């Protein structure tokens, strides 16, 4: 993704500008302080940016953290050192107080010496827009004119329903309600240790639009083998008219969808809202879906 608005000469400082924090030596960074950029930076300031405190280029940030050090000058010195290593120069420890006898909480303000090169910003592109529940519901009503049926299960010997429950149960995850919360989604949660043939049978009986499987156990690649087996079974039993297949679990890589034979893979930290948004996106943009729906419900 290119966001350069003003292409121009790279300031000499950028070449030496470290892009990662931990290795930064204040000594190097200090040669590129905010005041000695000159005209070159003004030309290219839309490509190279620093945080804004109250003046362009001042690089001011705030930060707070806790150190496992008793409160006192030593703790404040330690905080100062950490801030310097993170590229803050000068760093001011503006506040410190003890948390119990062994910890110190500090607030640090200071100027960071790093530059951000907007040309190098790489954003992982989600292929679908994140929608709030009301919009998910509205889209389903508008495009499907019926509820969207989701069948979920933990397949194989996996008894860890944590993942599937976090996505499906109304209780939800990370402050987001689960799919049960969505009025236009009909959720059938089959729970743990569901066999692949059973899952296919239920998905067919429930006329599932989408099947969600969760896999937590990864011993001997069980999660990969189980998911492949599931995808193959759906292909065999239902061919073109199979439901949308979604696999999720902490050890899955979202790049693996093709390899596993499913439509989408969700990794660690996925929230119900992302899954709901994806379902709506996939079902409303997939050309096969209207035919499937029409046929299944004729």
């Amino acid at each position, binding site marked *: 993704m290119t966001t350069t608005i003003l292409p121009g000469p790279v300031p000499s400082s950028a070449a030496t500008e470290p892009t990662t924090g931990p290795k930064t030596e204040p000594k190097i960074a200090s040669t590129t302080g905010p005041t000695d950029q000159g005209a070159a930076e003004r030309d290219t300031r839309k490509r190279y940016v620093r945080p804004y405190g109250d003046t362009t280029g001042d690089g001011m940030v705030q930060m*707070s*953290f*806790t150190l496992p050090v008793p409160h006192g000058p030593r703790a404040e010195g330690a905080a100062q050192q950490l801030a310097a290593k993170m590229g803050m120069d000068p760093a001011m420890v503006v506040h410190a107080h003890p*948390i*119990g006898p062994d*910890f110190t*909480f500090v607030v640090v303000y200071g100027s960071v010496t790093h530059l951000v090169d907007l040309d190098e910003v790489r954003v992982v592109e989600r292929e679908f827009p994140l929608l709030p529940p009301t919009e998910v519901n509205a889209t389903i009503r508008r495009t499907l004119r019926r509820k969207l049926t989701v069948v979920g299960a933990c397949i194989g010997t996996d008894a*860890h*329903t*944590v993942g599937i*429950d*976090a996505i499906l*149960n*109304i*209780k939800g995850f*990370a*402050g987001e*309600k689960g799919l*049960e*919360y969505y*009025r236009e989604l009909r959720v059938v*949660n089959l*729970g743990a240790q569901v066999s692949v043939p059973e899952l296919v049978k239920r998905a067919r009986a429930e006329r599932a639009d989408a099947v969600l499987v969760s896999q937590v156990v990864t011993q001997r690649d069980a999660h990969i083998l189980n998911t492949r087996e599931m995808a193959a079974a759906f292909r065999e039993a239902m061919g073109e008219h199979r439901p949308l297949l979604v696999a999720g679990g902490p050890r899955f890589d979202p790049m693996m969808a093709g390899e596993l034979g499913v439509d989408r893979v969700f990794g660690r930290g996925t929230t119900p809202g992302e899954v709901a948004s994806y379902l709506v996106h996939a079902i409303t943009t997939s050309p096969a879906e209207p035919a499937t729906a029409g046929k299944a419900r004729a």
Partner: protein
Amino acid sequence: MRRGLLGLDPEVVATARRLAARAAGPVVELARAHTTVAVERATLRLAGITGADSAHRSGDVPWVNRVVDTVREHCGLEHGVALPVFHALTEQGLTSLTELAEATAAGQVSYRVPEGRERTRAARAARAAVARGLRTVDRNRAQREKLVARWGDPAQRPWIYLIVATGDIDEDVVQAQNAARAGADVIAVIRSTGQSLLDYVPEGATHHGFAGTYATQENFRIMRAALDEVSREVGRYVRLTNYASGLCMPEIAVLAGLQRLDMMLNDSMYGILFRDINPIRTFVDQRFSRQVHARAGIIINTGEDNYLTTADAVDGAHTVTVSQLLNEHFGHEAGLADWQLGLGHAFEINPDLPDSFRMELAHALLARELFPDAPLKWMPPTKHMTGDVFRGYLLDGFFNLAGVLTGQSILLVGMMTEAVVTPFLSDRDLALANVRYVLGAAGNLAEDFRPEPDGFIVKRAHQVLSETVDLLERIADDGLLNAIAGGTFGLMRRPADGGRGREGVIVKAEGYRNPAVELLETGASR
């Protein structure tokens, strides 16, 4: 002192209570007519069965599960588990229930419902064993009273309630003790995600929970001992909370009584609505667990706050009041006194709405005046915590202010990092500083707080109460189970024949015996 600020009509309040009783009546009958696998397992836990079958192919299966499942296979559970078990104990010539459980696992025991003299003998032995368990519960209650007398209650109301949840009981101990030193009066150890859906209670000390720590008897013991240690140090009795909810609610209640826990989350409908547990299973398990809590001197915390995380906090305000009245009725019916009813409610109104704080005050004051003797539990904002921690800190400050201004009893400390991360040590410290500031600066402001008799707050409270009465009327007419099936609470539709755990519900036979229920209902200890 604060009573009567809203000028509620005692007639209307009495009508609301009458309607709640009418709505709850059929459900209580239903609860009396059934037992569940969990109630029977809880009975065996009171009778002294501990431990698990570690040789079983699907991992550690608690002995109570092995025994109850086997009895069910052999002769059904409609007569209760106690008679067949204590009959088998004599018949096999065994001395302990653990030996009986081992023999059961080895397939050496055949269970049947005894008749005549054998039945009388088994019933007597069962009652004696269960009574021993209940006397431990009674001793723990007396011990708590003694320790509260020695170390004292918190100096202020509301009590400050903090959650720890690391997944590892040893880490929880460190966090809990630090929280107590920093001012927490109540420590809740949140459970591992999904424990409510396990149909057994895990065993032993645990170190690998998901976003929480498993509730086990050993974990309960470890944490209570740690809090006793820190109570002595800080000079006040620090209370311990866990969760009697989910499929093992009755067993968890028993374990809480056996390990001197002080408060338990225990809502009459939460499992149905938010965990899709079968309604009848829930109401049967509920009644038993509340009877145990009543006996153990445990304060229950109900979960009305949850409705407002799904339904709108303004439109759904009256559903909270309805549920509080139902929880009160179910609680009283099970023997809980008013001081044990930690009815819940929450600060969840969208802060962008005009007058949102005034509405919060109205709702909180309504709960206070409807339940003057209940230790109300005041829950912090979660739904409108966005990750903007600065705004979240301000919102929590207003939540604290509403809490002290309306005389709430138990204040769950809000975290500015709600919905962001599990709280850092510093988040908890800052949150407590927020509470301390508000308590110190405005703790006695209630004295000067007189809402205008025709003002916004009073009118809003009256409106919510009148909506409450309307809804209760409808529920009393349609039946509570139908109301739950129709999505009245938290927008969830839960039919009475659906949900998890319904296969564990059993209709009681004529000759059903459960010494635990008998002892709990009569208050006897022999």
